[in-house]
């Protein structure tokens, strides 16, 4: 056999090698990407939301939701803050229909608007909305001006007034920055549900992807009457209520 390679053989071998490498390599890439969802940035193919049925929620349920949030994120034990200075990520609210006198209790937290006013007013881009609709404060950039607190129609944000220690490992919090409900983003990214939703443990509070036609929240929203709080502001909130 001669050692010289003619043109036809060269082309044959190169094509075969390239094709086989391409086949194997594409397989490897696909499996690696499928293995861990957390390695990839979130996309706007999803939008996380919550549906709260106030008729099914008892006051004890709402208190349970507030406590679950406190335990998960470690707020509510600010010793040197008084009154309005205290953090309030989620609170129990009583609303009364003036015409009928019907009183409804509901849990109120960041409504994770599609067009959040807090993001519009932030001068440092610290107040931000993730691609999947979760509204967060990037406290690395927050200068504590509190414009977002003034802009939020739900008064969902709090300001930390004192030095904190022993924070929860998944929820860094610190003096001089604004904070609010994160929709338990650290849990959602792991495929879990937010702490308040888990604490209720019934279909009174449903969490899920608003865009997914197969998700429980999407299907329920199609069937039942639901409302946004301050729907007149046209913010298209991610947290919706039925029974109010």
């Amino acid at each position, binding site marked *: 056999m001669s050692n010289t390679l003619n043109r036809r053989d060269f082309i044959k071998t190169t094509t075969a090698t390239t094709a086989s490498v391409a086949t194997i390599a594409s397989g490897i890439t696909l499996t690696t990407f499928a293995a861990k969802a*957390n390695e990839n940035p979130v996309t706007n193919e999803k939008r996380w939301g919550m549906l709260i049925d106030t008729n099914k929620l008892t006051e004890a349920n709402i208190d349970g939701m507030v406590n679950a949030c406190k335990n998960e994120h470690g707020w509510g034990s600010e010793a040197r803050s008084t009154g309005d200075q205290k953090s309030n990520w989620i609170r129990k609210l009583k609303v009364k229909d003036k015409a009928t006198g019907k009183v409804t209790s509901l849990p109120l937290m960041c409504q994770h608007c599609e067009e959040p006013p807090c993001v519009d007013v932030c001068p440092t881009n610290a107040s931000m909305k993730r691609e999947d609709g979760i509204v967060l404060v990037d406290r690395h950039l927050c200068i504590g001006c509190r414009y977002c607190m003034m802009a939020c129609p739900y008064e969902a944000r709090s300001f930390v007034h004192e030095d904190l220690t022993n924070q929860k490992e998944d929820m860094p919090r610190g003096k001089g920055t604004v904070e609010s409900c994160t929709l338990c983003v650290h849990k959602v990214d792991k495929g879990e549900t937010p702490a308040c939703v888990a604490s209720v443990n019934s279909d009174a509070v449903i969490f899920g992807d608003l865009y997914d036609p197969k998700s429980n929240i999407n299907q329920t929203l199609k069937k039942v009457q639901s409302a946004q709080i301050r729907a007149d502001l046209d913010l298209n909130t991610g947290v919706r209520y039925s029974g109010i």
Partner: protein
Amino acid sequence: MYRLLVITLSLFASITFAHADIDLHDSSLGDEARAIKAEGKIFHTEGISVIRKMHPELLNHKRDKTLRQGVRTNKDSLKGCVNCHANKDEKTNQYHSVNDKDQFCSDCHQKTSVSVDCFSCHRTTPGASYKGVK
């Protein structure tokens, strides 16, 4: 010529001791990091000097990816740094904060007089999910 040799040698010596100076504080390295080192394994495969010089950039890059894009991998995670480099007090069985005096972070940061801002918000000891030295 002799003078030049002395200068060169003393320069070499100072460089050597400068590095040895950091390595001497093995006690503040952190429980898990010390265990890894004792086994002869290398965690920071990119090189210790890269981590020493570049850790602020790596952490800043990771923080944006995590917070804004939801990328929650263990690589360059501050939680991972704290878990590995925290020292447990043998008497009280409690972890020292990594930014306490003579602990891992402050060991160098004091020397270079660079303040660490991470821990005005972030936790300074391993949290509940940390299972201890493997």
